[in-house]
Each structure stands twice: as structure tokens, then as C-alpha cells.
């Protein structure tokens, strides 16, 4: 008699599992999490980018849409680069060498760092791969975009330009 109830509970929990970590939402301030460099042992934190409009992109070498997003990010970087705007590609590969291989095939003109210790990923509570967070100058998250599709890139560009213009 207990078996059906147990099964039902288990199914329900499986299907409606809720992320218990504190999910970072629109309107929150970005966490100050530690990041590593891809090539050497240097560490850095997100705080150092304070004051700029940020486009934080969580990506990995095994993620197909991430490969598709790189040309867009490169174009965005070339168009808006300067002191005010920064694209940060946070790589979540367990093996940073996979990321290096990926970058050899799909070069990035924007800065790429590694989060191999999963610090930022957990603090941001990344919901999907890839995830983009648009952050304004005050460190407040203004837009979260899950996934990447070429048709939607235009929207993101408009949002970024708005933030850079100071809104």
C-alpha cells in the first residue's frame, strides 16, 4: 500500500523539482564570485568590472548554441568595445583544456574566464546553458536570457545599447 504513495511522491518531486538555491533574478545585484583565468592560475572577481555595463555569458565547449552565439558576441564586442562595456564569457567546462580547443576553432575577441570551481555558476544559480546576464553600471541585473537563437540576437543588442546609453 505504501509503494504507490511513495512512487507518486517520487514522481512529483522529480517532475516539479524546484531549485532550492537562491536564484539570482532581475533586479538583484550581481554576486561577487571568484573566477579563474583560462591559461594560468590567476584569479579574479566580478567586482573588478563594477562601473561598466556587463554582458555576462555562461558557456561551455559542449553546448551547441554557445558556438552559434560567438559570432554575435564578437560582432557586439567590436561594435561597442570601450571603457563602458564589457563582455565576459564565463566558461563552465570541467576541463579547461576543452575550452581552449573550442576557442581555437571559434575564436573570441571578448574576455573569457573560467569558473572551473563552479563559484559563479552556483551563486548566479544558472538555469540553462547558455545563459546571458545583462548588468548595468550599478551592478544590477537588468535582463536574463536563457539559451541563444540567432533571431533573438537583435533584441539583446538593442538592450545592451540602451544600457550603455545610460538607461
Amino acid at each position: 500500500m505504501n509503494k504507490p504513495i511513495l512512487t507518486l511522491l517520487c514522481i512529483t518531486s522529480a517532475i516539479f523539482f524546484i531549485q532550492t538555491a537562491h536564484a539570482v533574478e532581475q533586479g538583484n545585484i550581481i554576486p561577487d564570485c571568484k573566477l579563474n583565468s583560462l591559461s594560468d592560475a590567476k584569479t579574479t572577481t566580478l567586482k573588478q568590472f563594477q562601473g561598466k555595463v556587463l554582458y555576462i555569458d555562461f558557456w561551455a565547449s559542449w553546448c551547441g548554441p554557445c558556438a552559434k552565439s560567438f559570432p554575435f558576441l564578437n560582432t557586439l564586442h567590436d561594435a561597442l568595445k570601450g571603457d563602458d562595456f564589457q563582455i565576459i564569457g564565463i566558461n563552465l567546462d570541467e576541463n579547461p583544456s576543452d575550452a581552449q580547443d573550442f576557442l581555437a576553432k571559434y575564436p573570441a575577441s571578448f574576455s573569457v574566464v573560467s569558473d572551473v570551481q563552479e563559484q559563479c555558476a552556483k551563486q548566479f544559480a544558472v538555469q540553462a546553458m547558455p545563459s546571458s546576464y545583462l548588468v548595468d553600471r550599478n551592478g544590477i541585473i537588468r535582463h536574463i536570457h536563457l539559451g541563444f537563437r540567432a533571431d533573438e540576437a537583435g533584441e539583446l543588442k538593442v538592450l545592451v545599447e540602451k544600457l550603455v546609453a545610460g538607461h
Partner: protein
Amino acid sequence: MPRKLMLTLIATAVSASCLPGCTPLSPWQRGTLAKPSMALEPTPMQDILSEHTHGSREAASAGSSSSGGGCGCY
């Protein structure tokens, strides 16, 4: 007899599949699952051909194929 077997199978399948509801995996930890060898159908061209042939020589119809797993990208 087959009825009992069926029910047991379904029960096992369902309970087995909900075990993980209790051990979560984060979206960025799917690197291994994203490998082509881990796809539900790693050799789709072969599978379609052999299902087609087996279906013409055997009475059982092939099961329908599902999707899922993989990188879980949006």
C-alpha cells in the same frame, strides 16, 4: 502472466526514473551527457535502417523513439 510482468516492469521503470529527483544535476554539469556517444540514438542512420528491416521480419513493432538527455541547452 504477461499482465503481471507488464505492471512490474512499468512500476520498476517509473520508480527507477524518479530516483534522481532526489540528486539534482546543474545545467552546467552536463558535459558528459552532451557527448555524441551519449545521445539516445548515437547511430540514427543505422538504427532507422535496422528497425525497418527487423520490422519486416519480426512480428513486434519497433518502439517509438524519444528525445531527451544530451546537453539540455535552450
